[in-house]
């Protein structure tokens, strides 16, 4: 079956998941993002690439931060941005997802950025819209968050250059994390030889080892000699039932402190997709320390989203 994200020429038409994308497309996105990092550092942070285009942010699940980064990216490409918080709008009046999309398409949208609590919602929209429209998945359920995966990939490449010699540990609430899933696919595709996930039994999804990662339940063992530590946010709002005794208990076993970080390579970098829970998954001394690249991740995230939007709009 043809990858629904690609057009007949094999070019990227939608970005729904990193899974199944050829490595050349990922590299093209990262290379293009490098040029956009330069744009966002100058006084006039705008280029005229998407002038006259309308980008609709369709957020069926609230997320101020992700929405803002897409909004900034679109605006720096000179697109017009319309933000729709559908969680509190027509959805509650009973309109179906595809009716909402049809209505917005009739308003001459060029691109939809979709965040939805239901896995697969962006795929549904992508398979429904007319051929000139583009869909970007900004996070669907527990499934994927491809632009976050790409910005993590960009950050790792920026600091570590070569994926083929790296040890990367992803730590914490892997179960609820679409970030982890996207990043595992991306790193595997780029040839990362040593991928580890670290977390309590209750927060590691069953079968994750089939993705080619090594599972650790002991943080200290898992962190040994890694080049990159990716901390995940403890998603307490997604937890139902007693997966964890308490946040304090979690910090005791899985919180990243300087002492534990010392087990990683001396030049290891620490990443976090944000928003951080200080004192739950990460200690302030680490979050503000010299190994942390959490704020550069945010800066790179804008450039990566600009790259994705401009590549899609041009295909």
């Amino acid at each position: 079956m043809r990858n629904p994200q690609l057009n007949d020429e094999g070019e990227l038409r939608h970005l729904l998941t990193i899974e199944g994308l050829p490595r050349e497309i990922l590299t093209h996105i990262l290379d293009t993002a490098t040029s956009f990092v330069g744009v966002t550092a100058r006084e006039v942070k705008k280029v005229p690439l998407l002038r006259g285009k309308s980008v609709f942010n369709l957020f069926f699940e609230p997320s101020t931060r992700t929405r803002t980064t897409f909004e900034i990216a679109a605006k720096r490409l000179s697109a017009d941005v319309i933000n729709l918080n559908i969680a509190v709008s027509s959805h509650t009046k009973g309109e179906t997802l595809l009716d909402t999309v049809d209505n917005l398409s009739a308003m001459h949208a060029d691109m939809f950025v979709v965040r939805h609590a239901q896995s697969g919602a962006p795929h549904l929209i992508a398979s429904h819209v007319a051929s000139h429209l583009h869909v970007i998945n900004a996070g669907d359920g527990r499934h994927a968050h491809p632009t976050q995966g790409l910005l993590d990939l960009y950050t790792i490449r920026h600091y570590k250059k070569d994926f083929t010699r790296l040890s990367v540990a992803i730590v914490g609430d892997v179960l609820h994390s679409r970030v982890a899933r996207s990043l595992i696919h991306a790193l595997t595709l780029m040839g990362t030889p040593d991928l580890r996930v670290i977390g309590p039994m209750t927060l590691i999804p069953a079968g994750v080892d089939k993705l080619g990662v090594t599972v650790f339940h002991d943080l200290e063992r898992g962190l040994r000699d890694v080049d990159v530590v990716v901390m995940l946010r403890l998603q307490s709002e997604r937890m139902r039932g007693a997966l964890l005794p308490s946040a304090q208990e979690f910090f005791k076993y899985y919180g990243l402190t300087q002492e534990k970080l010392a087990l990683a390579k001396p030049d290891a970098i620490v990443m976090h997709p944000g928003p951080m829970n200080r004192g739950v998954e990460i200690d302030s001394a680490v979050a503000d320390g010299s190994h942390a690249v959490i704020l550069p991740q945010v800066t790179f995230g804008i450039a990566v989203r600009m790259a994705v939007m401009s590549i899609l709009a041009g295909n």
Partner: protein
Amino acid sequence: MTPALPDPETLCAGLVRELKPHITADTALVGIHTGGVWLAERLHAALGIALPLGLLDISFYRDDFDKTGLHPQIKPTQIPFEVDGRHIVLVDDVLYTGRTVRGAMNELFDYGRPASISLAVLIDRGGRELPVAAQYVGARLEVPSGRMLVLDLDENGKLRLKLDA
């Protein structure tokens, strides 16, 4: 009909002689990727220009994005000097429709307000679609429309012109 192509190294030396009397402390060279950068590197060295060389990739400023999409290989633009008040010489290999130069000027203005912009090209092949002219020209050449004239580096790192079908 293939026109005889001049030797770019000779043309480059001619450009150096043309530019020399106009270089001041406020002159900056900016090469347009890819061919223009090779040429600008040579001019920059030969003219002994004090300000570092600027590099421009105009992919984000092209007017045919809707038709052709984003260029597959974009190089970062680097303008390592203050643009405000500078006399900028844009450098490109071949001047044809003028659309690349328009994109380059738009991009430069997003870095600041130069005192002046002039244009140096190795070849002016005519066929302008915009009111753009070069102040410094290596050679004027008749090239049939529809053929691509590009600058290239041979295996010894020497400039050469190539005419593609």
